[in-house]
């Protein structure tokens, strides 16, 4: 039953052919059997999962179930979950049990989704390979010597290995799309403000956005519908109604103008990945889409701008982890200064410290204008590029990542080469647009992601185009052999 999608399982649950308890037990069993190889879960909440499954079965019996009722999913360990530890992949929060639920968690719970547990991630979502987690690296189910991508690598690996039916991720610079690409699943980063950030531990507040990671666009539509919506507790959440994403899946793509980013298809792109992405674009054309070449002339500035803005915000957001109120505190501090220094030195890993240092520098007196302010200007230039592009096309496509999954440890000592893993995804976060990664044909036995970028709040169209492509192809249906 783990081979089925959420949409298929939902039908089986509603028809009574399958119970949520059976399905949940099956998934828990799979986690037990397979996760040793992957390390995709930090915490498995077996007891709570079975309780929730039971409640879902009762709700289905009572006839007031929705498409997610009884579906076992996992949460990236960046989402606060009441009564369940939320580590954010860090030693800092190793034993921290959240007293409240994130809005996204509460929304999914209200929709009847069953929580299997919390997935591993790069520490505080900083990383592109899932090697910075305090709880050890996550491995790619397609080849366990390879990384699954980051920072939502635990969610991506768990979905790709069919240890859960879907999972939440967060995307600050590509952290949903890049691991989705490297593990061959579907991942959607919605428009900034579409999902509430309440209860999602902040990395870079102006860029962070939650989204679904699933095995199909249809499943992503189901999950996104439940996750999204205005939240009065998040001032940056969008006060506009949520579209019916599932209902929007029925339109063909004839006449849809698909823009191909010329800057993304040249230098720096692995040849095999380039061919796969081109094959996906050709398929869209076959389905009736109109292909136009577009340009994002300032996209090249996005990585440097991002590596000023994101660390600047993170240096401030992570100041609250000071050993005073919760989280890791060093033993026997000799004074206040010592308490701060040692608690933070011991609690944070190298990548987090690196970014805090960069961010602190970028915001300090005398450098603010040259770095932070300049980066904000670059954000405007990038948003303007997209605005112009969307005058020529409805959806923008290109590769999600420049390469397929790389080897564990391969880039671990070279932060800059690691940062370049997100070269095609970052601009989307800087502009606040929705972006998606869906499987293209594999390259040398490893998944390749096709990135699709939509206009603000145009998730419905994005999901529909992806769905049409998935109806016509089977790229998204391939499963890693060891987890089939």
């Amino acid at each position, binding site marked *: 039953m783990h081979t089925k999608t959420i949409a298929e399982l939902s039908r089986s649950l509603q028809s009574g052919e399958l119970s949520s308890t059976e399905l949940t037990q099956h998934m828990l069993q799979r986690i037990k059997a397979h996760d040793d190889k992957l390390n995709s879960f930090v915490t498995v909440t077996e007891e709570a999962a079975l309780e929730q499954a039971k409640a879902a079965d009762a709700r289905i019996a009572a006839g007031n179930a929705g498409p997610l009722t009884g579906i076992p999913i996992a949460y990236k360990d960046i989402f606060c979950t009441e009564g369940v530890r939320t580590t954010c992949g860090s030693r800092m929060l190793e034993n921290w049990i959240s007293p*409240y639920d994130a809005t996204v968690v509460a929304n999914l719970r209200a929709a009847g989704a069953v929580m299997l547990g919390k997935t591993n991630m790069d520490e505080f979502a900083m990383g592109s390979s899932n090697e910075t987690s305090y709880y050890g690296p996550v491995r790619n189910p397609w080849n366990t010597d390879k990384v699954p991508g980051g920072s939502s690598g635990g969610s991506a690996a768990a979905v790709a290995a069919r240890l859960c039916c879907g999972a939440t991720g967060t995307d600050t610079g590509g952290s949903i799309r890049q691991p989705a690409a490297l593990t061959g699943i579907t991942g959607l980063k919605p428009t900034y403000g579409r999902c509430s*950030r309440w209860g999602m531990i902040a990395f870079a507040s102006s860029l962070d956005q939650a989204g679904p990671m699933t095995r199909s666009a249809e499943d992503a539509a189901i999950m996104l519908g439940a996750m999204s919506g205005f939240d009065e507790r998040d001032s940056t959440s969008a006060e506009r109604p949520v579209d019916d994403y599932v209902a929007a899946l029925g339109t063909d793509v004839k006449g849809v103008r698909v823009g191909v980013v010329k800057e993304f298809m040249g230098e720096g792109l692995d040849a095999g990945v380039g061919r796969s992405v081109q094959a996906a674009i050709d398929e869209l054309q076959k389905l009736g889409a109109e292909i136009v070449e577009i340009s994002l002339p300032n996209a090249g500035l996005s990585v440097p701008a991002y590596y000023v803005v994101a660390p600047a915000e993170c240096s*401030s957001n992570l100041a609250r982890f000071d050993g005073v109120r919760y989280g890791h505190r060093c033993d026997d501090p000799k004074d206040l200064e010592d308490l701060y220094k040692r608690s933070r030195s011991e609690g944070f890993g190298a990548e987090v410290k690196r970014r805090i240092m960069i961010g602190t520098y970028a915001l300090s007196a005398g450098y603010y204008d040259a770095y932070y302010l300049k980066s904000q200007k670059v954000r405007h230039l990038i948003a303007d590029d997209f605005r112009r592009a969307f005058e020529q096309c409805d959806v923008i496509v290109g590769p999600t990542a420049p390469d397929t999954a790389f080897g564990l440890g391969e880039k671990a000592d070279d932060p800059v080469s690691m940062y370049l893993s997100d070269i095609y995804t970052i601009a989307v976060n800087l502009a606040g647009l929705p972006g998606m990664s869906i499987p293209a044909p594999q390259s040398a036995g490893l998944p390749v992601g096709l990135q699709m970028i939509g206009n603000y709040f145009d998730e419905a169209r994005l999901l529909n185009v992806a769905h049409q492509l998935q109806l016509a192809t089977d790229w998204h249906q391939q499963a890693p052999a060891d987890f089939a």
Partner: protein
Amino acid sequence: MQWETVIGLEIHTQLATKSKIFSGSSTAFGADPNTQASLIDLGMPGVLPVLNKEAVRCAVRFGKAIGAHVADRSVFARKNYFYPDLPKGYQISQYELPVVGVGEVDIMLDDGETKTIGVTRAHLEEDAGKSLHEDFHGMTGIDLNRAGTPLLEIVSEPDMRSAKEAVAYAKKIHQIVTYIGICDGNMQEGSFRMDANVSVRPKGQQEFGTRAELKNINSFRFLEKAINFEVERQIDLIEDGGKVIQETRLYDANKDETRSMRTKEEANDYRYFPDPDLLPLEIDEAFIADVIASMPELPDARRTRFEADYGLSAYDAEVMTSTRAQADYYETVAKVSGDAKLAANWVMGELAAALNKATMEITESPVDADALGQLVARIKDNTISGKIAKDVFAAMWDGEGSADEVIEAKGLKQITDSGAIEALVDEVIAANPDQVENFRNADPAKQPKMLGFFVGQIMKKSQGKANPQQVNELLRKKLGG
């Protein structure tokens, strides 16, 4: 050498909102530690701030009260620094684009002249928590009840030239914020705190001297003493060949001195940047119009009106409008009694003395404005004399009832029956033939003074209840004086 003092003030007023500026927790004073701290105030991972509109309303009120420009778009910024009672590691404040821009207030100097003091800006921010050093042996306790309390920081131009001017300005701001109801003004509870930037320069010199910042002063008296001490210190230092360094100093009220807290060299780099969790604050015309419509009469306007409507002297009007409570109280007494001048005398005289003796605020007076108004009305309509009224007031203060009840119960009603008064007059004349003789033979210029003897006798006989005016008239007639 002649020295000139230059003073600028930063005043932190705690806004009188029910809940905190970015969370729904209560702002009530005096609760048990950490009982009024929500997830947001505790800076829990994942929480986000949501701006309290009431705090914005308060800021706009203040802006309009001092004729300042209210920004249609202002920005909240993070001020980053580590401190155990600062839960998030940053304070949400406003930096480059504050909600209230340039304005001004007038202060009255000792010589009766007015001086205009510029207000540079006023911005919204959240307060931090409190570190508790007592009761924790070798450790520090943290109380986050105050964390997130809304503050309006009002920054003046360096326009003040003496401690007295600084105090007059601080009092004026205190008067305005309490009048418009945005701050309870309670200085003991820390609702109104002042920082003074003090420097000295040779008289006539254009550029400012190096300033020292005196932090967290919570009384007008201490403000005056702290500035005076600091001015002396700086002048002595320079005259001895030293140099003032830019630093933060604390005023120690027990020793009456200021001492160094931290120097500029150790000063924090706050790394201000716009808070990405909060959208820019946008204030539209309708919101401002709504605030203006709900604005109470301001102290300066009220003083002018009291002079015009109630015929009060400039001094009396100033005293009567010194606080909104005082002005409201007075205005009720004036209206109920129907005699504005007599009302002013009673509020400033008998009532003020009683409050002073009991160390009470006017809002705590056991005799409320309505009750005092009725008492004054009984003087005005001759039911009792001003002298008897003092006894009635004392009884009212002790809770013996309204003016009419006390007068009735104690039989204090004035005797105005001319027959009864005439009988008393005749009695006294008959009993004092010698004095009558003396009076009649006396120099007419001395007669009015001598009349006092007879008036006294008659009043005594009537137990003070005879109408003194009638007594005087009748006596003069009978004695032929």
